[in-house]
Each structure stands twice: as C-alpha cells, then as structure tokens.
C-alpha cells in the first residue's frame, strides 16, 4: 500500500443542512445541488458505501468508473479526484478524505454475483443491487436497472498489482473516517450501505454510515 492521501475537512457539522444515518443494509437517494458538499462518514469503520451519482437534470448522464479512472490516470479515488460522468464531465470533486483510498472497479454486490462468487445458495442474502433497485423504484424518479452501471465503493480497498491481479482486502478505514465531495452539477446521489457478509469489505460486520450535506 502506498500513497494514501489524507486530507481533513474544516466543516462544522452544526452548520450542515442535513444529516442522516443510513443503517447497515439500507439505502438513501437524495439530490445534492451544485455547490453543496456531501460527507459520508464510516461511523464504526470498515464499512463499504456503494454509491452512484446521476445528473439530476438529465438522469441519462451518470457516474462512469472507467471515465473517472482514465481521466485521472489512476485507479483509486481520493482527495482531488474528479468523479466523471459517462459524458466525461466532472460531476463532483473529492475535497477531503481521511481514509485515503476508495475503490471504483469492484462494483456492487448482487444476488446473482453472490451466487457466482460464493455459492449458488447465496441467492437469498441481502445485497447492494436489491437496495439500489428498491430505492430507485420508491423514489418516483424515472430510474430503472437500465440506469445502473458501475459505482463507487467508498471506504473499500481493492488493490490491483502490476501483474494484473485484483483482490478484496481488509478495509483501510476506521471509525469516524470520512470522505467529502463538492457537487459540480446538480446530482442525484444513490447509496447502498453494503450488507455483504461473504467477504471482508465490511469486516464481516456491516455497520451504519452517516451522510451530511452543507450548502
């Protein structure tokens, strides 16, 4: 491991316009206006926050993992990373990060991918994609499975080697670590607080996260 990029924020939670705790295995969909700042707090440590962004004014424009990593020339997300859309435009910019590294190539867990990765009998375990699909369905927004592509896993550690191997490692996050990002356009934020129990991405113990928004 190298180049963890530690950057604290000076924002005061008392000045926030919204704060909300997302229990383990639950979801959240919320609009963040251009110029607002979103902080995601890993309250108890080693908890993956699977996150999508859509352009709130044109939902067909959405976060793109491949565009983000190619445009910054690096795999991991941290302070200074611009989260790019499928139209290769900056959606948000990471402005503070006390964890230092986040994943965007590991995707989200799903009933079917759990069957492939672990065992066919894992089908009935709760998973991030079910949370995404339910949140989209309940939101009243015209968002469906077709709009789900490849997300960010805040607080998750998926190192890639020069030889091209990839693995899910123990998180580098700890209680109270956070990542903060400023919206560069009006975005719709969709989060699944990951319920995965089959690998160490949540230290086998999914816990709550907190989202905080400032004007």
């Amino acid at each position, binding site marked *: 491991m190298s180049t963890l990029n530690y950057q604290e924020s000076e924002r005061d939670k008392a000045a926030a316009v919204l704060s909300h705790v997302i229990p383990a295995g639950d979801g959240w969909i919320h609009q963040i206006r251009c110029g607002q700042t979103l902080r995601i707090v890993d309250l108890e440590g080693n908890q993956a926050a699977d996150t999508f962004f859509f352009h709130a004014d044109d939902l067909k424009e959405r976060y793109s993992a*491949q565009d983000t990593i*190619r445009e910054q020339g690096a795999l*991991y997300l941290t302070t200074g990373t611009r989260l790019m859309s499928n139209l290769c435009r900056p959606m948000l910019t990471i402005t503070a990060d006390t964890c230092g590294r986040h994943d965007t*190539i590991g995707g989200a867990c799903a009933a079917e991918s759990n069957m*492939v*990765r672990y065992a066919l009998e894992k089908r009935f375990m709760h998973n991030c994609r079910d949370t995404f699909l339910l949140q989209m369905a309940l939101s009243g927004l015209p968002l469906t499975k*077709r709009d789900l*592509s490849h997300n960010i896993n805040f607080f998750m550690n998926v190192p890639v080697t020069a030889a091209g191997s990839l693995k899910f490692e123990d998180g580098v996050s700890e209680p109270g670590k956070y990542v903060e990002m400023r919206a560069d356009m009006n975005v719709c934020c969709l989060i699944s607080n990951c319920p995965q129990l089959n690998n160490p991405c949540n230290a086998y113990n999914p816990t709550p996260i907190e989202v905080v928004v400032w004007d």
Partner: protein
Amino acid sequence: MNATYEEILPGGAMWSMRIPRAREVRLTAMAAGANVSALLYHAENPLDRLNVPDTLKALHTAKLTRGHVLMSDMGRALASIVDDSLGWHDPLGGHSTRESVAAAFGSRTYQDARNEFFRNARDNFLVELAKSGLGIADIVANVNFFSKVVADEAGRLSFLPGHCPAGATVSLRTEVPTLLVLANCPHPMHPAGGYPRVPVRVGIFPCEPPGPDDACRLFRPECARALALSERDLL
C-alpha cells in the same frame, strides 16, 4: 475449420451481430496495434449485460485472457475466452469519444476525408445499439481487446504501446445468445499522433458448448457457477 462467417472490419469500423449460443468468435489483428472496444448483451434480454466489475472481482483479475469468463450483471457467463495469443486484454480504460479522438489525433470529418474520417467508439456504439433499440443508458463499462493498461503500486495507469503484434488473436465462445457490439477504434489512452487504423478480422465458427472438463469451467469455481447459471436457461 472454415468460418461460418468472416468479415474484415476496417480501422474505425462499427459492427454488431446477434450470435447464437456455442459459436466461437475469433478476432484477428491484421496488423500491429489493434484495439477493439466491445460490449456484450444477452440477445434475449439486453438488460442482462456485460458487467466488468462483476467479471473482474469473480476472477480476481484486472486483465482478461484465456480461461476467463465474461459475466453479466445477472451472474450469467455471456462468453468465455477460449483462446488468446496475447495474455492481456484491457477491461479498465473505457472507450474513445469524439473529444478524446480529436485531442489525440486531431479531427478529420467525413467532408474532409470521406470514409477515412476519424470515427470514435462512443458514436459507433450509439449507432450499433440503436439498431437493437438500445441507447446511451445501455453503454456500460466495455472491454478493449488487444490493448494493455497496467497499474503501478500507487494505482497510476499506463497504456502499453506495442502490446499487440500483427496476427494476434483472441477467441470468445458464446455461452448464451449474445448481442456482440464492436468498435474498431483507437484505445482512449493511445498516445497522440497518427490515427491508428488497424483492420481486424471477425470469424465465427461452430463449436461445442462447454463440457464438464472445459478449461474455462475449470479455471475457477466462479467460472463454473457462471456457466451453470447460463445453463439454467436451457432447462
């Protein structure tokens, strides 16, 4: 074996085809430096589509080569890589756009150059997908056959020019009826200079579906389970 079908895609070309289960699709670089950006969909339900993150995490890899199974977001094996002369195909770099092509190679329009104009993978995908009633929402992370992008310890990415020699081949076996969409366009991380224009031959051959001792099925247990999920469609 003679190909059931064969076609040469000129540099810059777009192509798509609905391919039945159990066909071998062989791509051959007719000159050095090819790149083919590719998307795969289940032909009977395009919402069931290539999922690069699911594929990479199931295989514990950030490259694609022989033995690997390209998986859908519904856990199915869409296609297996049954042969590969290169050892590394890129699943990370994404695909070129009008803007990225203009930045790297300059702009050459149809009016300037007739059919030698500088095409890009995004526009090619949009056109080919539209023919199947699909659009930008269906463009997910793609793979780039014949290209190599490596990450160093800090995660910094670099594109390796010279990775693909003339004659390089990669072969996919379809595991479900597959809509395969190809854009024979430069990799978006290709160094600036002349627009690379490398013809690629597509050959489609009959082949057997994977048996119990198939090399891709045995490559990892995750491959066996993805193939098993595809085979449930046959029940």
